[in-house]
C-alpha cells in the first residue's frame, strides 16, 4: 500500500468523524443519555414482544392521554402479536368522525382496525389549551426524532428530580429533568411505581415501565425494522461471498499483466 492509500483512508475516517462528533457539541448542555440494553439493537435485534406489549399498556393508560400517535393504525398491532379480536376491542374504545351519511350528516362511530390511533385532542390549539400552553409531541416517530434515540427517551422518562439543584429557578408549571435540553420540561413526571398493572405480573417499577414503553415506541417509529435486518443479513452475506469470488476472478484475469 502506498502512502497515498493509507493517508486517504485516514482522511476518509476524519471526514466521517464530524458527522458523529458534530451533533454532540450541540447537546453539551444536557448530559449524554446512558446506553441501555435494547432487544432491537444489533444485527439480529428484534422487538421483545412481551416488553412491547407491556409498553403498549403504558402508552395506552398514560402517554395517550396527552400524546397523539397519528402514523400508527390499530391494525399495525398485529405485528406485535395482538389478535384480530384484541385489536377490534382496543380500537372500539376510541371514537372517530365519519361521514357524510345518506342524509349528508357527519357522525361519530367507534374506531376500527383500519383507523389510525385516535388522538387525545382535535388539534394543536386544543392540546396546548389543555396542557398549560405546552404541546405534547406526536409519539409515532419519537425515538427517531431525538438525538440519542431510545436511550434518550428512556433517560427523559427516568430523569426527573424532585428538587432542582441549588441555584436553578424553575418557571411555574415546569419540572426539573436531567436529560431534557435546558432541564425544564412541561411534562409532569409521567411514571410512578405501580402506575399500571401489567397482565403478565411484571412489577411496574418506573424503570421497567420506561424500558417497556421505549421498546413500544421504537417499534412505532420503525415497524419494518425486523424485516430490514433479516433481509440485510442475507444480502450482506451474499455480497461478501460474491465479492470474494469477483476478487479471485480479478486476480486470475490480471495475472498475465503484472
Amino acid at each position, binding site marked *: 500500500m502506498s502512502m497515498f492509500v493509507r493517508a486517504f483512508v485516514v482522511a476518509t475516517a476524519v471526514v466521517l468523524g464530524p458527522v458523529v462528533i458534530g451533533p454532540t457539541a450541540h447537546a453539551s448542555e444536557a448530559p449524554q443519555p446512558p446506553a441501555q440494553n435494547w432487544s432491537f439493537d444489533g444485527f439480529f435485534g428484534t422487538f421483545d414482544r412481551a416488553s412491547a406489549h407491556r409498553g403498549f399498556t403504558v402508552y395506552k393508560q398514560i402517554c395517550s392521554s396527552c400524546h397523539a400517535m397519528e402514523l400508527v393504525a390499530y391494525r399495525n398491532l398485529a405485528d406485535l402479536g395482538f389478535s384480530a379480536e384484541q385489536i377490534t376491542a382496543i380500537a372500539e374504545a376510541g371514537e372517530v368522525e365519519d361521514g357524510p351519511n345518506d342524509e349528508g350528516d357527519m357522525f361519530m362511530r367507534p374506531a376500527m382496525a383500519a383507523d389510525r390511533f385516535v388522538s387525545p385532542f382535535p388539534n394543536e390549539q386544543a392540546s396546548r389549551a389543555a396542557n398549560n400552553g405546552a404541546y405534547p409531541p406526536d409519539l409515532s416517530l419519537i425515538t427517531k426524532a431525538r438525538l440519542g434515540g431510545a436511550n434518550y427517551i428512556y433517560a427523559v422518562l427516568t430523569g426527573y428530580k424532585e428538587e432542582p439543584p441549588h441555584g436553578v429557578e424553575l418557571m411555574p408549571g415546569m419540572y426539573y429533568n436531567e436529560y431534557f435540553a435546558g432541564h425544564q420540561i412541561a411534562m409532569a413526571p409521567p411514571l410512578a411505581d405501580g402506575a399500571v398493572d401489567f397482565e403478565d405480573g411484571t412489577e411496574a417499577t418506573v424503570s421497567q415501565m420506561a424500558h417497556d414503553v421505549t421498546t413500544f415506541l421504537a417499534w412505532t417509529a420503525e415497524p419494518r425494522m425486523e424485516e430490514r435486518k433479516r433481509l440485510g443479513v442475507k444480502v450482506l452475506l451474499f*455480497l461478501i461471498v460474491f465479492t470474494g469470488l469477483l476478487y479471485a476472478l*480479478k486476480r486470475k484475469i490480471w495475472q498475465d499483466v503484472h
Partner: protein
Amino acid sequence: MEEKTWKNPTIAWIDRRMPVFTMMHHDLVDYPTPRNLNYWWNFGSLAGIALTIMIVSGIVLAMNYVPHVDHAFESVERIMRDVNYGWLMRYLHMNGASFFFIVVYIHIFRGLYYGSYKPPRELLWMIGVIILLAMMATAFMGYVLPWGQMSFWGAKVITNLFSAIPLVGESIVTWLWGGFAVDQPTLNRFFSLHYLLPFVIFGLVFLHLVALHTSKSNNPLGIDVKGPQDTIPFTPYYTIKDAFGLGVFLIAYLGFVFFAPDFFGEPDNYIKANPMQTPPHIVPEWYFLPFYAILRAMTFEIWFITAKLGGVILMFGSVLILLALPWLDRSPVRSGRFRPIFKIFFWLFVVDCVLLGMVGARPPEGVWVMIGQAATAFYFAFFIIILPLLSVLERPRPLPASINTAVTRSGAGAPAMGAAE
C-alpha cells in the same frame, strides 16, 4: 476503427444500419486503457452506478410520494410503513445520496492528485465540475421533499441566500419560492426539478464520457500513453476490476442501508415541518458542511459587500474556482507522485476540506469562527496562490520513460519508479 463483424444475423443487420453494437464494443470492450490504473480509478464507474441507483429508487419513490405540504411527510412515512419494500427504496435513496457524494468527492480528489484536469483533459474536468453543481442542486431540492423540520428550514436558509444580491435579491427570493414564504408552490417546483435534474446529470455524464474517450484515461504516472504496450483492453481487465470495486462499494453502502440507515441523517427531519418553530441548530447534510462553513466564514463587510453577500460569493466561488483549475496549475507534470511540494499541499488541502466540514457542523461560536475563516483562506489560497506559484517554483522529479517500462517486470527497477514510491 477496425470493422467488427457480428456473428448473430440480427445484431449484424441492426449494426449495419445503426452501429450501436460496434460503438459499445469500441467503448466498453476494446477501449485501450492504461495498464497501471490503481483502485482510485474505480470511483468514476461507481459514480455512474450510484446515479443509476438514485434514478431507479427515486422513480419508485415518486410513484408513492405526494408533493403537498399537508401530505408530503405522511406520504414518506406511508412509504416506510405500508408500501411493499418502500422502506428499502427510501433508505436506498436516502443513503444513496450520501454515498454518491462520497464516491464523487473521492473521484474529484483523485483527479486533483493525479492532475487529471491538465491538457488535454480540461473540458472533461470542467464538465465534471458542472455535474457536481447539478448534483448539489438536486441533493438540496431532494432533501426538502420529505418536508421535515430540517427540510423546511434548510430550504428557507439556502433560498434566502439569494436575498443578499443587491437591488433584485428580495424579488429573486419571492420568484424562487413562488410566493412570500417557503410553501406549497416551493415544494411543488422542487419536486418537479428534483425529478428533472438527474436526467440532466445523465446527459452531462454522457458528455463527460465522450470527452474521456476522446482524450483517454489519465493514469497514476500522469504520462501519456506511448503505444499499445502501455495499454490493455477495458474488457476483461477493467470490467472485472470495476465489478470487484462495485462489490466492495455495495457492502459498505448496503451495510448502512440495512444496519444504520439514519446514520447520515438529522433526527430533526423526522419531525414534520413547522414554519412557526425554528430548530435550535440548522445544519445541512454532511456533504454540504464544508461549503456551509465557507458561507459563514464572512463575518465582516468589505466596502459595499455585506457579510451575507460576501459569504454567498465565497460559497459559490469555492465550487466555481474548480472550473479555472486547469489554468491555475500550469505545471507540465500531471501526477502528484513526481511533485514533492505539490504533494504536501495536496494533503494539507484535503485536511483543510475536512476541517471546513467540522466547522460547518458546529454553531459559529468562539474559536470555530476563527478556524473557519483560516480554513476558508487556505482553501482559496491553495488555488489562487499556491498552485500558480508551484507551477513556477517547484522542481518535479524525473518522469519514467513510459508506462510499460515503469510498471511491468521487465521495466522494474527503473529509477523513476523507485523514487515515486
